[in-house]
């Protein structure tokens, strides 16, 4: 027999304790305290199987709801066309970039290129959660598959984001459109033009607002790839997008570039996580500098991505 709970009086000191606890958790999270992060991951790992089971059970309901409110079969067809379009854009950038790199003879360097990087193909299992998190997706692979934080994530069209958080069997990806997302880029055919592009929310092009020489006229439609320089989180030459607009800033001190992402972010079903860590490239570069006299900072060659063929495939 149940006993009525004593709801009773309000006790402000308990509220105070809860507020202090919340602020402490926020502080620990901001400071990225190691054991605290492990605790979060463990808690997620415990709940994730229930979550996955729930997703399986409710997927017919949420799927039907989404179909009704987003166009059903027409929407599927549109998704396929978008994916095909993204693939074609990727090939176009990669081809232009290959011609560019051939000219600079960097292909002669014996460095593994993006296409040979280990990778994990994963299925997108969740989109943004809640109403204030528009720029993340979740995939069904995690640390058990070798995925780590900050690894680049690509789709048929090119770079779509990076791994932000990893659990054992799931990972959260921050998409390239997040306003806090930055990536070092190089304009294909303009080797000197290296800059930082940042996300600019859904429906808007990526923005480059500094470091581009105002005296170098950059054509619209030119491809943009990752620069892979320094401690970049991304290997070089992953297609990022096309220049959709190049204009001088107000003081004419730099060019503002708008980059239309080549990856189609709206219809992601499968993505490829490149098992690349910035340290890997740095070590390889140091080795290579040793054998090449150290004059040139080599750039890994063209990255063209195979279309994912199997959900569980992990290419060595």
């Amino acid at each position: 027999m149940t006993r009525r709970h004593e709801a009773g009086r309000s006790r402000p000191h308990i509220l105070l304790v809860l507020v202090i606890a919340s602020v402490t958790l926020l502080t620990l999270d901001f400071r990225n305290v190691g054991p605290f992060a492990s605790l979060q991951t463990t808690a997620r790992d415990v709940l994730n199987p229930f979550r996955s089971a729930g997703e399986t059970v409710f997927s017919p309901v949420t799927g039907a709801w989404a179909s009704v409110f987003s166009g059903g079969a027409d929407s599927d067809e549109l998704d396929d066309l978008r994916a095909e379009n993204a693939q074609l854009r990727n090939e176009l950038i990669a081809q232009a970039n290959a011609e560019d790199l051939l000219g600079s003879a960097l292909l002669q360097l014996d460095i593994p290129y993006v296409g040979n990087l280990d990778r994990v193909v994963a299925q997108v299992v969740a989109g943004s959660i809640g109403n204030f998190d528009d720029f993340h997706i979740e995939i069904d692979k995690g640390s058990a598959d070798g995925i780590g934080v900050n690894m680049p994530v690509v789709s048929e069209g090119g770079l779509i984001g990076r791994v932000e958080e990893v659990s054992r069997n799931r990972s959260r990806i921050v998409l390239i459109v997040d306003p806090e997302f930055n990536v070092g880029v190089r304009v294909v055919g303009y080797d000197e033009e290296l800059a930082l592009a940042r996300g600019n929310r859904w429906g808007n092009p990526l923005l480059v607002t500094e470091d581009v020489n105002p005296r170098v006229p950059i054509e619209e439609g030119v491809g943009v790839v990752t620069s892979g320089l320094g401690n970049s989180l991304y290997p070089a030459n992953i297609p990022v997008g096309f220049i959709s607009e190049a204009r001088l800033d107000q003081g004419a001190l730099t060019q503002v570039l708008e980059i239309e992402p080549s990856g189609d972010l709206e219809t992601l079903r499968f993505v490829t996580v490149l098992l690349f860590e910035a340290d890997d490239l740095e070590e390889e570069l140091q080795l290579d500098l040793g054998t090449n006299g150290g004059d040139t900072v080599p750039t890994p060659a063209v990255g063209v991505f195979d279309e994912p063929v199997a959900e569980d495939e992990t290419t060595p």
Partner: protein
Amino acid sequence: MTAWARAALTVITAVLLQLTLFDGLRVAGIAPEVALGLAVAAGITGGSTNGAIIGFATGLALDLFLATPFGLSALAFCLVAYLAGMFANSVSDTSWVAAAPLVAAGTAVGLCLYVLFGEILGQPNFYTPDLWRIVLVATTIGLVIGGPLTKLMRWVWGAPNRPATSYRPLGLVN
């Protein structure tokens, strides 16, 4: 089963349902804020202190899966649940039907607190032109789900489901 065991079960179930079901049942692109509504209902039916504890636990469980700072939902939810409990003290009718507008209003206040704290913490994606649309739609949904959530939390506390005018939720007098 004790009230707190029921409360724990309800919180975990609500958060999992929020993540797996309700997040996919978006209206005009806006997900129902069931977890927040549950915290408010806990405050209305269980009193401000109990509501704050449930709000904190619900927010914390939800924070595990959000990309936003860990502890942000816990902070906003416990505060709004506490406020809901205090407000419920001052109204005479807290039947589950009459509680629905309270849950809806609490949802609106909770979302505003959440965004306010997010802005204070420098989160770039909180205060957007879409905010008022989110608040409006989530509040409207709160009107629909407020009644059932209140009824659920009454069960959690072991409170009688009788017409509200004869029931004072905080153990105060009739």
